[in-house]
């Protein structure tokens, strides 16, 4: 029997290189034929190849059928094993479904030749041929139904499908018919014994041979590459041990050694060794070796399977073999699958590193405890430091001291809420220069939803920021709009204009008091002084009147204005202020807003004031909550409304009535003219400015302006 098997093996590599050419990972499992159909080699050549492969299949089937006939139990027509079943099933698994008929036909021819030599009755012979082919097609189709990936026993799912269908369902299901046929032909055998016999023989054959054939086919019958000497030595030691124990256990004479169940289990540790170290392929080879030795021993009345009739002994051999080999095969597949997954993980990790290191942006990762664990090359090149220096929170030494608290507050806050974040801050470059960085991070979660930290990127936006600054400086008229200058100049000119009359009044009054103290009858002098005081007072009044006139309707330069555009301009202007306050602005601007009539500069002044007020109000709000809503809407045909809502501290009710009064302020650095000026400007535009507290948190300032049409 060993001789025929060797023959089988030496014949199949040739067939494999042509017909059983296994698909590589990633290509379709039955691409071989279709590839050839499309190939420029032509249909004729393809037909030749197909014929050759069918011939090989026929020869293989013929040889294995001879083995089947050779293994008939004495005085029965029931064989011990069906290697032909495994061979044809494996062939079909690697062939395209549309040519299955050709392979089946070839197999039938091979069987017919063997049966003819064996002098089998023609009816039996034909039945066996058709039945065998159907059995193999059922098994192959069943496996294909469940396994869509390329074959190769790489996953547990595939191994389950192969074992369940080819080694359990199909053998025992088809043996219902086979047993019925055999017993109906005048055979005296019991139907159920016959059913059990056929089912077990097919099942044991499938589990012993099919995994090995599938793996061999998947690797195109090539010996695994890159096997080290150590491993080869290990394989030889294992094979020798298997061979020795197999011979000792399964072929010993029953009278010399006690044939206990314990003895049967001797090969099991070796099989587990094979599963752990040599994958499904090695395990399959080891199982096959044991199976062949056990069959030989049982047939010759040796080994542990004795004590009953030969049929009974074969049954217990097959049962024992099925029970051992199914878990061992699955174990080997699981181990292989785990190893593959780990390899893929490592490969993914390596790919991630390679990708991030070649990326032009800086990339970092942090863990669930807020510590940074990874920086890519771009980052390390930028800071000029090593990964070890930057890891943990070492990198934060490079953050500009003024930005550190703001960044860290936002980062930890986002961490605690598992939210993504975007932040601008300054980071020290290797040459010591602080550069503006736009950083963003997204939280990472493991498959069970547990927070794993952040992954994020950073971009150097200094150049863009500089360009922005220059644009700002070019807009000289807008530059002086900055709140500080406006208030400074306003208070400066007002102080100067009022100082002169005030000085005169004070000096005059004090002089009068002195004159009266010296000589209370000097009324002429005092009268003069009082006249002057009255004069100066009027002058002071004039100054104030003139200041108020600045905001009067007549002095506003009215233009047609588009409010949404104006708001965008203001936001550009205030970008750095917003970043400094870490305020995110959300715009809800109405589309197709009608134009209004107004003074661009003055209305910008109002917007700037309201936005900066909102920012100031959110000084004590949590970093991630600092949001400002800007809304524009058309409230009626004639009126446009602009709302600025913050999430700050709100306005206390007792101040609600006075916030628009001049010199009303809660800020130590402000003169408190901002809102008063805003109100004056809006009033001069024919509009209205008001404030209210939001229902949830913060306050809203809103103003309504008449549309351009309305003014006309």
């Amino acid at each position, binding site marked *: 029997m060993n001789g025929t098997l060797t023959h089988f093996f030496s014949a199949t590599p040739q067939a494999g290189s042509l017909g059983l050419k296994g698909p590589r990972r990633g290509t379709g499992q039955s691409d071989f034929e279709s590839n050839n159909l499309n190939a420029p080699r032509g249909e004729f050549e393809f037909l030749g190849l197909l014929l050759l492969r069918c011939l090989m299949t026929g020869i293989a089937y013929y040889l294995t059928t001879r083995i089947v006939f050779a293994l008939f139990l004495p005085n029965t027509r029931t064989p011990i094993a069906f290697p032909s079943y495994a061979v044809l099933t494996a062939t079909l698994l690697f062939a395209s479904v549309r040519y299955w008929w050709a392979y089946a036909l070839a197999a039938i021819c091979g069987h017919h030749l063997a049966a003819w030599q064996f002098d089998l009755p023609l009816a039996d012979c034909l039945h066996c041929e058709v039945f065998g082919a159907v059995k193999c097609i059922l098994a192959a189709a069943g496996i294909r139904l469940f396994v869509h990936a390329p074959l190769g026993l790489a996953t547990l799912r595939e191994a389950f499908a192969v074992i369940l269908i080819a080694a359990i369902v199909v053998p025992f299901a088809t043996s219902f018919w086979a047993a019925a046929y055999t017993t109906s032909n005048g055979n005296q055998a019991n139907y159920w014994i016959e059913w059990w016999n056929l089912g077990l023989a097919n099942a044991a054959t499938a589990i012993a041979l099919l995994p090995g054939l599938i793996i061999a086919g998947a690797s195109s019958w090539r010996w695994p590459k890159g096997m080290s000497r150590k491993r080869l030595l290990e394989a030889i030691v294992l094979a020798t041990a298997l061979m020795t124990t197999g011979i000792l256990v399964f072929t010993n004479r029953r009278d010399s050694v006690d044939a206990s169940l314990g003895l049967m289990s001797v090969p099991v540790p070796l099989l587990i060794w094979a599963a752990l170290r040599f994958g499904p392929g090695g395990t399959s080879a080891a199982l096959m070796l044991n199976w062949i030795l056990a069959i030989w021993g049982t047939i010759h009345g040796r080994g542990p399977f004795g004590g009953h009739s030969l049929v009974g002994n074969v049954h217990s051999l097959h049962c024992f073999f099925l029970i051992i080999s199914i878990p061992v095969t699955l174990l080997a597949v699981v181990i292989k699958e785990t190893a593959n997954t780990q390899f893929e993980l490592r490969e993914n990790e390596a790919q991630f590193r390679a990708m991030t290191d070649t990326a032009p942006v800086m990339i970092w990762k942090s863990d669930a405890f807020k510590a940074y664990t990874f920086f890519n090359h771009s980052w390390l090149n930028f800071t000029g430091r090593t990964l070890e220096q930057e890891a943990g929170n070492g990198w934060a030494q490079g953050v500009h001291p003024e930005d550190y608290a703001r960044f860290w507050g936002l980062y930890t806050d986002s961490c605690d809420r598992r939210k993504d974040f975007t932040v601008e801050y300054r980071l020290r470059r290797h040459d010591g220069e602080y550069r503006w960085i736009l950083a963003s991070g997204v939280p990472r979660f493991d498959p069970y939803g547990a927070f794993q930290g952040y992954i994020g990127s950073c971009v150097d936006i200094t150049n863009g920021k500089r360009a922005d600054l220059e644009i700002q400086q070019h807009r000289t008229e807008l530059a002086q709009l900055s709140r500080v200058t406006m208030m400074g100049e306003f208070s400066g000119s007002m102080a100067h204009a009022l*100082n002169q009359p005030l*000085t*005169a*009044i*004070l*000096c*005059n009054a004090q002089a009068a008091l002195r004159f009266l103290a010296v000589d209370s009858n000097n009324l002429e*002098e005092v009268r003069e002084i009082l006249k*002057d005081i009255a004069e*100066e007072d009027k002058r002071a009044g004039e100054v104030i009147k003139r200041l108020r006139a600045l905001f009067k309707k007549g002095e506003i330069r009215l233009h047609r204005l588009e409010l949404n555009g104006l708001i965008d301009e203001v936001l550009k202007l205030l970008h750095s202020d917003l970043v400094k306050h870490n305020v995110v602005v959300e715009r809800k601007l109405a589309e197709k807003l009608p134009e209004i009539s107004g003074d661009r500069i003055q209305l910008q002044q109002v917007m700037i004031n309201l936005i900066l007020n909102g920012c100031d109000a959110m000084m004590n709000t949590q970093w991630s909550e600092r949001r400002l809503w800007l809304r524009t809407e058309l409230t009626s045909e004639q009126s446009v409304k602009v709302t600025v809502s913050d999430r700050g501290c709100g306005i206390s009710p007792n101040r609600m009535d006075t916030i628009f009064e001049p010199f009303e302020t809660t800020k130590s650095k402000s003169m408190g003219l901002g809102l008063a000026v805003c109100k004056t400007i809006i009033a001069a535009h024919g509009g209205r400015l008001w404030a209210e507290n939001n229902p949830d948190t913060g306050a809203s300032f809103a103003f309504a302006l008449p549309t351009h049409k309305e003014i006309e």
Partner: protein
Amino acid sequence: MTIPSPVVFVVDDEPSILKSVSRLLRSAGIGVETYLSSKEFLDRHHRHAHGCIVLDVQMPGLTGLELQNALLTDGVDMPIIFLTGHGDVSMTAKAMKRGAADFLTKPVDGGDLLEAVRVAIAKDRISWVARVEIAEINERVATLTAREVEVLTHIVAGKLNKQIAASLGNALQTVKTHRGRIMEKLRVESVADLVRLAERAGIKMAQ
């Protein structure tokens, strides 16, 4: 020479300020002269005056600080009290460094101003004598002709008449005549007095 009664010179472009400040000073019995611009003050100012100056910082034409400069180069060290609308630190520091007596912010309290004026006048009383003396000497030196000044530089250098005549290429008699006229114009009796006076007037020795 008797010291004249102190006068406060008030310089401001704002007539109402001039009027009210001078009233205040008069109410305290202090003499006042008012000027509407720095130029007017420089034109009419009397060198022998004693008192102080009250100066507005921001004025059209010559500002208060520039006027202070001009007076310093003129050798007038009368104390100056600055008045300003809103004084910034750098301006104040500059003025004080140059010897400003005080720096007051408008609207100024009458008491503060009077106090500052009194302190300044007291200070000026000391420097007035020296100032007037030097001014008088300068006036006398100014009457000398160019030739006489030349001769004087040689006398101060301690040269004899003969040596002076040789180096100037004059007759001995001419030098003697010059010398006599110098003594007369500068109203000195001895060569020692002449040398001391020339030193105070800042006349340098001839080489």
